[in-house]
């Protein structure tokens, strides 16, 4: 079934990305329907992070066209960026500022954000007791919690999560799962890359698999439980694209 372009939050048309001489992404063409949750899988170096950063308009494509909310990435970035949030390996936090000050920065730059929610959000992500502590003393898991808190504060329409369960302890993993479910209830479109395919599959309704920068499974609806895990394993085991 082909959906009309207006119901597609993300549309990639023949998109490639090159770093120096190496092609990180090769001729990607797919679309992501709005309000869907896409599980992005692939081995190390498959291009997952590059793709997510491209969807966040942080990277420009070398070739092809990226459209987010039907706006052209690289041209209409000012219209796209207020509507999305990227949570990635880089925390985008200032180490010398406290958790509270890092979140307050968002309010200074984005006047529409309701900063009265900041206390509740810090409570929600379990950082209220450390709200005044400098981020420099935070563990990787605590930083990840703060990034999720910042995402909740911004209330985006498109959420891009790069390995959201990485570096988290079991309570942290449970918290992130809970936040993802909460975000999904708000009809937000989600794209999430993870190596924990089983956990990701339980949270997502579509699957996209990359290998060596190429799409091996375009955004397709997930069926029975375990399907994404099985297909990802099969696609990785298959030869080619090395």
């Amino acid at each position: 079934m082909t959906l009309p372009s207006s119901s597609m939050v993300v549309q990639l048309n023949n998109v490639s990305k090159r770093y120096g001489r190496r092609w990180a992404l090769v001729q990607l063409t797919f679309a992501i329907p709005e309000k869907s949750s896409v599980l992005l899988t692939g081995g190390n170096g498959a291009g997952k992070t590059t793709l997510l950063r491209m969807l966040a308009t942080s990277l420009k494509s070398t070739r092809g066209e990226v459209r987010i909310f039907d706006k052209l990435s690289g041209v209409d970035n000012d219209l796209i960026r207020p509507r999305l949030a990227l949570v990635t390996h880089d925390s985008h936090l200032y180490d010398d500022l406290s958790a509270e000050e890092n979140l307050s920065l968002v309010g200074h730059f984005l006047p529409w954000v309701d900063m009265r929610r900041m206390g509740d959000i810090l409570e929600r992500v379990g950082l209220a007791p450390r709200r005044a502590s400098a981020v420099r003393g935070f563990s990787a898991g605590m930083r990840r919690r703060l990034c999720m808190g910042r995402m909740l504060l911004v209330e985006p329409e498109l959420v891009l999560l790069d390995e959201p369960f990485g570096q988290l302890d079991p309570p942290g993993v449970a918290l992130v799962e809970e936040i993802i479910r909460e975000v999904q209830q708000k009809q937000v479109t989600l794209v999430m890359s993870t190596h924990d395919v089983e956990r990701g599959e339980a949270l997502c309704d579509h699957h996209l698999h990359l290998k060596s920068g190429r799409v091996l499974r375009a955004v397709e609806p997930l069926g029975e439980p375990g399907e994404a895990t099985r297909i990802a394993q099969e696609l990785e085991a298959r030869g080619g694209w090395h």
Partner: protein
Amino acid sequence: MTSSFAERRPASLVAGVRAVINKDLLLEWRSRARVNATIFFAFLTLLLFLFAVGPDTHIMAQSAAGYLWLAVLLSSVLSLGESFRMEAENAALEGLRLLPVDPKAMFLGKAIANTLFLFLLAVILVPVTVAMCGVEVQGSLMHGVAILFLGAAAISAPGTLYAAIASQVRARDVLLPLLLFPVLIPAIIGAVKATKLLFAGDPMGDLGRWTALLIFFNATYWLLCLLLFGRVVEE
């Protein structure tokens, strides 16, 4: 959702600039050890110039303005590099871009914060230079403040742009002075000549011309760097 997406407009340029200045000054305050190290480096540079010249008070007084601005210039490499090291850590600059923060607000905020720091450094160094070189200051305080501010601003505008460029490469510590120093030659000549006239007196009325050079340099580079900064911080 608390606001419709049509209502989602980033902060105004003025509010954005103010937020960047506040953030940068707060970060400078939090990293006081680095700020103190930069000020100490400036003192040390000044002392080394004086030791190199020897105990000839006439030469020291003649060259005092040059020593002052060279100490500010060499220290500026540390402070400008540091202002973007904080942004490179955890890819905080990418975070600002994606919020999104207007690159013009980013440039103006960072360049103004850098100007304030370099101005403060120059203000601290002037009495030390005057005392150590045996200078009898002839010019007015108001002129002195204006020249120090114009000189600091002249270093900051291209300095902020080049520090942003240098922060994206591995050899950032080497690249920044290589890019910055040649561009700053007219500004440093103007600042040194104007300061020299303030120190030794201005019987020929040349101060206005050197001040005009500094104003022209500032106007050109602040505008040029403001226009180019967006291209530098975007990929």
